[in-house]
């Protein structure tokens, strides 16, 4: 806090700097280390004898002749069929984000413009739904999906993720639409627009900041999901996160653990880039529900 009156002692400043640096180290170092290690062979990154090998690349030099190797990446993406998993992730993410934004904006707009009591109860119900652990829902899905023979395919998973995502999207967009002045669409209604026309012509042009935030969160949910995708998709259709887990499970293969390491880096990098660009929106989204109470 830069207050004119608030003079900080040098000791406090030093302490603060040290604290921030150590926290950033704790927060970021694991990722940097994994990124570094993904270019080594397994004997270096998971060294039994000496952890310094991970830096000096002792075994990597012997096995590949260079200090860095991209073997783990090439193998995971081709042999490990990580390309298929990332293709599935892209399909799932694109559909989940667009469908849940479509449903969410309509629903949240209605909620924000309704003065009836049931709007409050719907929001409360959404809060309860938000609290449900996803795995309990999955245990409800599995049996009916087996019976209907819609288990294992991407469309089912997309619809399920959209539904799971709705409560949070509704809350986020509800608090956003509350900040859009009512007079805007009310004047359009007086001019003879229907609610749909008012939504289409008046609200849609101004709703993009809120939609981008909500979209980012849908994207993070769909991209990061493990519970639903691991249990509702068959091997063939696995997205990236369950794929990473499958590399861990079978340890007969020497390369497999390094596949997981490189897959983790491959899956995390795009997400980090995206957040770097949209950092402001993520933060405003996380606080939207909170600051207004």
């Amino acid at each position, binding site marked *: 806090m830069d207050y004119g009156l608030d003079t900080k002692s040098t000791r406090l400043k030093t302490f603060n700097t040290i604290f921030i640096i150590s926290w950033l180290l704790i927060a970021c170092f694991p990722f940097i280390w994994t990124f570094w290690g993904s270019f080594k062979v397994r004997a270096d990154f998971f060294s039994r004898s000496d952890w310094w090998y991970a830096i000096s690349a002792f075994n990597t030099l012997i096995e590949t002749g260079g200090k860095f190797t991209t073997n783990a990446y090439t193998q995971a993406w081709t042999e490990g069929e990580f390309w298929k998993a990332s293709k599935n992730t892209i399909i799932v993410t694109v559909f989940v984000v667009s469908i849940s934004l479509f449903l969410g904006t309509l629903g949240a707009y209605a909620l924000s413009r309704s003065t009836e009591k049931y709007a409050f109860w719907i929001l409360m119900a959404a809060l309860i739904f938000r609290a449900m652990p996803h795995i309990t829902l999955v245990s409800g899905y599995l049996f009916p999906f087996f019976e209907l023979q819609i288990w294992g395919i991407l469309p089912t998973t997309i619809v399920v993720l959209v539904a799971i995502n709705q409560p949070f999207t509704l809350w986020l967009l509800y608090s956003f639409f509350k900040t859009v002045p009512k007079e805007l669409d009310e004047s359009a209604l007086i001019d003879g627009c229907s609610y749909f026309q008012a939504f289409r012509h008046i609200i849609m042009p101004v709703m993009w900041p809120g939609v981008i935030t909500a979209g980012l969160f849908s994207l993070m949910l769909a991209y990061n999901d*493990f519970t639903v995708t691991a249990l509702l998709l068959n091997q063939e259709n696995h997205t990236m996160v369950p794929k990473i887990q499958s590399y861990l499970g079978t340890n007969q293969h020497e390369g497999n653990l390094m596949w997981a390491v490189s897959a983790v880096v491959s899956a995390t990098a795009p997400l980090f880039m995206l957040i770097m660009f949209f950092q402001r929106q993520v933060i405003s989204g996380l606080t939207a529900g909170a600051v207004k109470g």
Partner: protein
Amino acid sequence: MPNKTFFWFFLPTGLAMILFIGLPIISTGIQSFYAQHDQVVKEVKKCDPFGCTVSIVVDNEETSKIREAKPLGKFNGFGTYTDRNHLAVDEIKKFWNETESFGAFVDQVTNLPFYKALIFTLTYCLFVTPNVLLLGFIIALSLNAVARKIRGPLIFGTILPMIVTPLVGSLVLFWMIDSQGIIGANIQNLMDDPYLSLKSSKTLTWITIIIYGIWHHSPFAFVVFYAALQTVPQEPIEAAIIDGASRFQRIKHIVLPHIYPVVTFVALISLMDNFRVFEPIIGFSAEGSAQSLSWLIYDNLVNEEVILFGSAAATSMMTIIGIAILLAPVLIRTWKEFKTAR
């Protein structure tokens, strides 16, 4: 907005939530009263030159026939809820009568799978949630004191642990603290104990998972607190400085009361998320010494031979009841506020 318009606007999202959140909860409820069929066995007489033996084998054909006819399984009432893997009513009665001291009784009960998982889940919530609030608040205060220009990159670095999925986050940490990773290997050298590893001790595993939880969730608390700190009014703080209030007093008497509603919000969200902990258990491959309620359900659902729908559903129902108990105070408070507001 007229009711009819509201209905059409809300229909798609409402339908999605009812079909894929509401109905599954009901489906889970129904499934929890059924158990998978017993396998049909038949006697097979096998004769060889040394005589005949009668052995009992599973009749796969008959078993699958029954399964097809009644896929839901046989009706079991509350049987699944009270069996050994869930509430274990009979076992607890037995332990109560047989054990001599109360400590021994507690020991026995906490070894039952459901109670073991419940205790881990509660311990995790109990340790992670307050620490997340504390650490998040301290980071927010500390970052708030840094020059505005460099805050952007610092915030980006801070929120990294939050945006990766728990499975990846726990894997990344696990690869470092594993006995072959950079931190694990060095601790082994430092302690001069080649057998010291995460998997060797239950306490160590629990501590690691709890530390992971704090690492993963603190950024969320940070972000919310940081935004709330921006809204703290300056005048009272300046007045307090003039009156000679120390930094700590200013935080305690002005900043904290101002952001109090946000604190409850973060506590609630983080409690809800912590209660469903299970991916870190897979990431740290800690199934042996730490099991949570969600992990029990997952384990039932990925069972190799027969998926234990009934068992998973019973645990799910009890988890939902647990969530309801956690949420009850908040819901009651909101309802009271809503009533007085009208």
